[in-house]
């Protein structure tokens, strides 16, 4: 039985995995946790993780219906992320592992997003190509087998989720407004404005989203306010389409380059309606199988960290005492 702990970004998360079954997965921003804890909205700083981590773990254990001492392995995110935030998780994980006398596994957050695909309700197995698109990351990797990741493309500037959030802000939707942009775009015509698709060249698998963001800024700056009000949904749809088109085209090109017929995704952007629609359409057209985990496994969670720890080598005591946190670290090419 594995206890997973994830504190690399905004959410404090803990989960219990028994075999491949998710017994519990608690995320601090979930309403049900808020209600229990008193409605404190966690912020970014490590002290919020510090305040929440014990309560989140206690709830994960309680919801799983197990005793803490039935845990046989601890998994914790060690990179990449804000050092202070990561250290809260790492120190907590070490303490529990030491107390229980069990082994510890340090997990790369990005690998966790890939490992979310191994979990129910529809577990998949490699080989596959995985797109990870969130507010902080955009990469496409080839996974020939569990634990092996070959980076095929990554963003050279902004992340896809960041591009959607910042575009939403330029359109007056507030920040982060990726979800609102998605809703507004649903009523718009994506062909209304032609925004540039970043690095749109055959064979180029890297992403660039800062150009489209700047293009939107200058388009809006020179726009008649009357047209803006009339066509806001069309502009939103056109902008979103440029971002999503890049994600879909490059993911499919990545799959083709590895002769892989299975595509998986991870990260918060996987909730985007247009991404799901276009990816499904294109996968069907090109005879690819598409796998999208449920939303709670796509956004940051600890079940995916525990999932990666099922196949990663564990460190016994005292080896894990020296385990640290690292600010950087994605996949290697």
């Amino acid at each position, binding site marked *: 039985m594995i206890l997973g702990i994830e504190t690399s*970004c905004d959410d404090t998360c803990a989960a219990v995995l028994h075999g491949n079954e998710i017994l519990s997965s608690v995320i601090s921003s979930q309403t049900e946790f808020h209600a229990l804890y008193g409605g404190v909205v966690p912020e*970014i*700083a*490590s*002290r919020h993780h510090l305040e929440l981590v014990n309560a989140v773990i206690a709830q994960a254990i309680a919801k799983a219906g197990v005793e803490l001492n039935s845990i046989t392995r601890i998994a914790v995110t060690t990179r*990449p*992320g*804000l*050092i*202070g*935030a990561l250290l809260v998780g790492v120190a907590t994980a070490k303490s529990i592992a030491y107390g229980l006398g069990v082994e510890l596994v340090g997990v790369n957050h990005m690998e966790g997003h890939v490992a979310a695909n191994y979990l129910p309700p529809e577990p998949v197995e490699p080989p596959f190509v995985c797109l990870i698109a*969130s*507010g*902080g990351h955009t990469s496409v990797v080839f996974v020939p087998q569990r634990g092996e990741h070959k980076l095929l493309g*990554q*963003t*050279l*500037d*902004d*992340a896809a*989720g*960041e591009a959607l959030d*910042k575009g939403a*802000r*330029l359109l007056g939707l507030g*920040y*982060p407004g990726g979800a609102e942009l998605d809703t507004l775009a649903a009523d718009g015509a994506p062909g209304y404005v032609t925004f540039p698709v970043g690095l749109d060249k055959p064979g180029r698998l*890297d992403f660039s989203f*800062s150009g489209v*963001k*700047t*293009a939107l*800024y*200058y388009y809006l*700056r020179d726009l008649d306010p009357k047209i803006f009000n009339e066509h806001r949904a069309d502009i939103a749809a056109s902008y979103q389409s440029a971002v999503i088109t890049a994600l879909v085209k490059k993911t499919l090109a990545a799959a083709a380059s590895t002769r892989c017929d299975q595509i998986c995704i991870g990260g918060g952007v996987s909730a985007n309606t247009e991404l799901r629609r276009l990816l499904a359409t294109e996968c069907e057209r090109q005879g690819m199988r598409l796998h999208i985990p449920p939303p709670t496994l796509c956004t940051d969670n600890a079940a995916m960290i525990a999932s990666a720890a099922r196949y990663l080598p564990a460190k016994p005591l005292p080896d894990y005492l020296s385990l640290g946190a690292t*600010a*950087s670290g994605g996949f290697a090419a």
Partner: protein
Amino acid sequence: MEFVSRSEEQTAVLAAGIAKLLKPGDVIFLAGQLGTGKTCFIRYASVSLGVREPVTSPSFTMAQTYSGKITVHHLDLYRLSDFTAEDAIDFEPYFEAETITFVEWPEQAEPFIQRPAMVIKMEHVDINSRRISIVSERDDLRQKLERLFASAGH
């Protein structure tokens, strides 16, 4: 000192020139609206400091660290609201005597973090052009900046 860059290439030359003036422990603030090229400027400065991996926007992650000839920390405080002294604790590991630290959206954190060696302000002019102004409180750096601007015809 002020310069209107007419292209990304001109910005790259300026960023590389400025990077060469920096010393371990220096902190550089970058102010300016969305899309003015703050991350782009830091990317070219970092390349000049020997960083070889892609320098991407840390708006979401808030901090990224790169190793070049020197360790480069890249902070972005865009998402933070109501920055407090306690928030500053989280960023302490990114201000070190032997590293160079770039800070985007530094305004609200300014009272709580290390004084910058220089403040670079970027403004929109048109789709290819940006006004870049640089202010430094340090006499030695100001002189070097003046020489850099004079020699480059900025």
